[in-house]
C-alpha cells in the first residue's frame, strides 16, 4: 500500500534531518515526521511542555497520562531523554538550541513571513510556543497544503493574517511541491510525482523562481 499525502510530506520532511539533530514538531502533519526518522540518526525530539527525547507512541493500554507531547498525545521517552520545567524548555528554544522546527501554516509569503496563530474574529487559538519556535529555531520547515480548502494559495505575495514571525521560513513542504528560500528568493525545487511546474505556479500566488535542477519526488507504491 502506498503512502497517503500527509505521510509523503512527513517522509520528505524527515529527509531534512542530520544525525544528532534536536527538533521540535508542531501539531498536525509535523507530528507525523517522527514516524520517518531512522533510529540510527539519534535525533532528539523536543516538546515545549518540558521534555527532550520524545519516543514512539505507547502501546494502547500502556499510556502514562503524565507523559505527553505538546499536542496532548501520550508518548514515551527515549533512553537519554529528560524532563524539565516550561521555563527551561523555552530557554532551549530562545537560545537557538533547536536545530529545526517543523510547523504548520495558515499563510507563508514570498519574504518568508509566517502566519499561523490567529484568524482575527474567527479562530483565536493563541500562539502557544509558535512565536518562540518560528523566531528562534535554527531552521523553520513549514508543512502545509499548497492551497486552502477553497483552493486559494497559502503561499502568498504578502501575508494577510497577523504574522507569527518575520522572514523566518527556510523550507516549505506542501502536498504537491517543495519550495526553499535561497538568497531570500522563494524557489520551487521539487515536485511530487504527478505535478507539473506550470500547475504549481498557477496555484501559487507568490512570485516563485523555478530551480534549474528541479527534482521529482516519486510516489511510494
Amino acid at each position, binding site marked *: 500500500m502506498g503512502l497517503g499525502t500527509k505521510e509523503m510530506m512527513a517522509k520528505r520532511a524527515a529527509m531534512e534531518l542530520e544525525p544528532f539533530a534536536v527538533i521540535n514538531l508542531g501539531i498536525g502533519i509535523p507530528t507525523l515526521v517522527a514516524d520517518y526518522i531512522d533510529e540510527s540518526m539519534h535525533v532528539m525530539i523536543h516538546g515545549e511542555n518540558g521534555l527532550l527525547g520524545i519516543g514512539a507512541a505507547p502501546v494502547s493500554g500502556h499510556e502514562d497520562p503524565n507523559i505527553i507531547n505538546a499536542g496532548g498525545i501520550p508518548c514515551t521517552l527515549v533512553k537519554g531523554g529528560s524532563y524539565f520545567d516550561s521555563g527551561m524548555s523555552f530557554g532551549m528554544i530562545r537560545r537557538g538550541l533547536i536545530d529545526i522546527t517543523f510547523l504548520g501554516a495558515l499563510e507563508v509569503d514570498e519574504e518568508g513571513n509566517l502566519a499561523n496563530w490567529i484568524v482575527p474574529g474567527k479562530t483565536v487559538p493563541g500562539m502557544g510556543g509558535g512565536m*518562540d519556535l518560528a523566531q528562534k529555531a535554527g531552521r523553520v520547515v513549514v508543512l502545509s497544503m499548497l492551497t486552502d480548502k477553497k483552493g486559494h494559495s497559502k503561499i502568498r505575495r504578502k501575508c494577510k493574517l497577523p504574522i507569527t514571525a518575520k522572514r523566518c521560513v527556510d523550507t516549505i513542504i506542501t502536498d504537491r511541491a517543495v519550495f526553499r528560500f535561497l538568497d531570500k528568493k522563494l524557489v520551487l525545487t521539487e515536485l511530487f510525482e504527478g505535478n507539473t511546474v506550470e500547475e504549481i505556479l498557477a496555484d501559487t500566488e507568490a512570485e516563485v523562481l523555478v530551480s534549474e535542477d528541479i527534482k521529482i519526488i516519486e510516489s511510494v507504491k
Partner: protein
Amino acid sequence: MIENTFHKIGTLDDAMKHIRDGVRLMVGGFGGVGSPPLLCKEIAERGIKDIVLISNDAGFPEVGIGPCVKAGQVSKMITTHIGSNPFAGKLMNEGLMDVEFIPQGTFYEQIRAGGMGLGGVLLDTGIDSEITDHMDRYDLDGHEYLIAPAITGDVAILYAKKADPYGNLIYDKTARCSNPIMATACKYVIVQTEEIVELGALDPDEIVTPGIYVDMIITGKGGEWTWAWEQKK
C-alpha cells in the same frame, strides 16, 4: 501517620479559604497535565467568580481548569493558548472574557521574574508581531529588546507527585511543566500531591521545589477527568 510539623498539611476546605471571588490565580499544568484535579473541581463546584486566571492554556472543556472557563467564572485570562477549549474562544469573541495572549516562552520568563524578585526581563520574542506593539522597548548594545514585566499572583494551585511536610516537592514527568515556576510567583501556594512522605524521605538533591515556596499541601482523590485521547479510543 505523617506528622504535620510545619502546619502546612491541610484539607480541601482549608485550601478553599484562600480562593475567593476576584482571585488572581495561577494554575499549573499544560493541557490539564500537571493541573490539580481536586482544586479545579472545587473551584468549579463552588462557583468562585471573577477569576483572573494565569495559566498556560484554557485546558479542555472537561479537563483541568477548563470547566471553570467554560462556566464563565473567569473574567480575564493571561495565557498562551486557548485552542483546546472552544468555550474560551466563544467567551472571548462575545466580550465576556478578556484574554491577554503572551508567547509561551515570554509568559514563563515573566512569571519566573515575578518569582525571582525581578521587575521584568529583556527578550525579543514576537518583536515583529503586533502582539507586542504595546510593550516598551530597550536598546542594549545595539540589539532591540522588549521589556516584559514580571507577573505575580495571589494564589497558585499546583500539582506534584510527592511532598514532605515542609512542602518540598518532586514532580512527575511532563506534569512538572509550569508548576515549579508558578510555585515561586504567588503570595499563597497550594499544592495537591499524589503522596505526602515523611520529613527526610525525599532526597535533598532531587527536590525540585524547596518547601520555602509552599504554603499548603493537600492530597486526596476526586475530580479526575477523562483525557481527550482516552475519549477517542
